[in-house]
């Protein structure tokens, strides 16, 4: 049933093809940048992470209230399978792009230099993916996008909340406590989002 739920969300285009194209463009741009200078891994990863914030904010409740997930919700699939599949399909393109850029960086530096797989980068991608997905579960993609734009554009908020600052950071550095906090917050948010999908009713928008 988990595979069915994953297939359902792929067919329903939780991540529209336009966004997948966006990731392809960021990977191509990263390849060009890394080919000329293999030490610019953080700069190459930045657009991927920013795009991931918007793409992973796919939103669950709004399409569910429009009835788009009725077929799945009444199929007998467990709710936690549905929640997990939705999360996985939402974050997978961004995580795959991160992996691609990481491999490109390793290839460009012939294995000598990599910021793509430091603890900070891993936390940045994992926490950004989970936080973005969780934040959008009860809202729409548009509302989440506005939220992320505010986070990125207000300097004080960006310095505190933006996952971009973790890119390239190492586990033993001054950011260690901050990395741990980001992990805890992302896990807390995703547990809340999972519970929301598990327990929440899905009234039809038109029926309320």
């Amino acid at each position, binding site marked *: 049933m988990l595979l069915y739920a994953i*297939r*359902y969300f792929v067919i329903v285009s939780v991540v529209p093809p336009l966004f997948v194209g966006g990731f392809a463009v960021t990977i191509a741009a990263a390849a060009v940048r890394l080919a000329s200078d293999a030490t610019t891994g953080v700069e190459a990863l930045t657009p991927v992470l920013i795009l991931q914030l918007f793409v992973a904010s796919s939103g669950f409740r709004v399409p569910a209230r429009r009835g*788009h997930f009725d077929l799945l919700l*009444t199929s*007998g699939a467990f709710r936690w399978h549905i929640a997990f599949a939705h999360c996985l399909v939402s974050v997978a393109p961004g995580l795959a792009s991160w992996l691609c850029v990481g491999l490109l960086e390793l290839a460009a530096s012939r294995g000598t230099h990599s910021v793509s797989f430091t603890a900070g980068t891993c936390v940045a991608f994992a926490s950004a993916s989970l936080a973005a997905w969780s934040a959008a579960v009860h809202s729409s993609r548009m509302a989440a996008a506005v939220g992320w734009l505010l986070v990125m554009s207000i300097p004080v908020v960006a310095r505190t909340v933006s996952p971009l600052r973790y890119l390239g950071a190492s586990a033993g550095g001054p950011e260690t406590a901050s990395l741990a906090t980001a992990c805890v917050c992302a896990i807390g948010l995703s547990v809340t989002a999972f519970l929301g999908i598990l327990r929440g*009713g899905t*009234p039809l928008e038109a*029926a309320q």
Partner: protein
Amino acid sequence: MTDVLLTARDVGARYGRRDVFSGLTFQLSANQTLGVIGPNGAGKTTLLRLIAGLLQPASGELRVRDLCPGLAVSRVNVAYFAGDSTLPGSVRARDWGSLATGDTITPERRRIRTLSRGTRQLLGLRTVLSRPHLNLVVLDEPWEALDVDGSRWLSRTLEAKRDRGAAVVVASHDPQDLAGVCDVYLFLVSRRGVLYRAHELSAAGPVTGALLGNVLDRLLADAATPLRAVS
């Protein structure tokens, strides 16, 4: 002995502070069809979503094979469809049709949003009704936008599902749709439900649309009388 599939005891629904209905009590057995009739906004869609496990009742108890509907959907095969507007427009018809069983039910490659309303409705119905071994069929205004052939196909299919042991729940605001196809009729009027068995409505023959319309009008008039007195 009848095989009771659906039991509602004093069921009520609420959105925020607004009561949709309360005190609904009925039973539905396998091989039976329940028709839910009521004006727009009476709570038909809400009741059907409660039965399909997509909502929890605000009061009372709803059971599908002795389980709450949310759990029952993983053990009882349910077909639920709430109308063409619930289909995601960006999905290709062929892909959507394959979601119920994995088999292709239509070769149509166009996106759902580009199809006519009747075709969308038929696609949604065919998809959910293609699920095998259905125990419970829950359809909201299923005849809406269907042409004559589509309507005939739907009526025949519902009859066949019922005869194979499914309990069927269909809702409509148009009494004509449900004439003669149901064993039990639930009229939702002014936040309450009134239940009639088909033979109680018409001992002589099949229940007609005109008869259902008259009953609905009478219930609406009865419900409006105290309001007129107050004003």
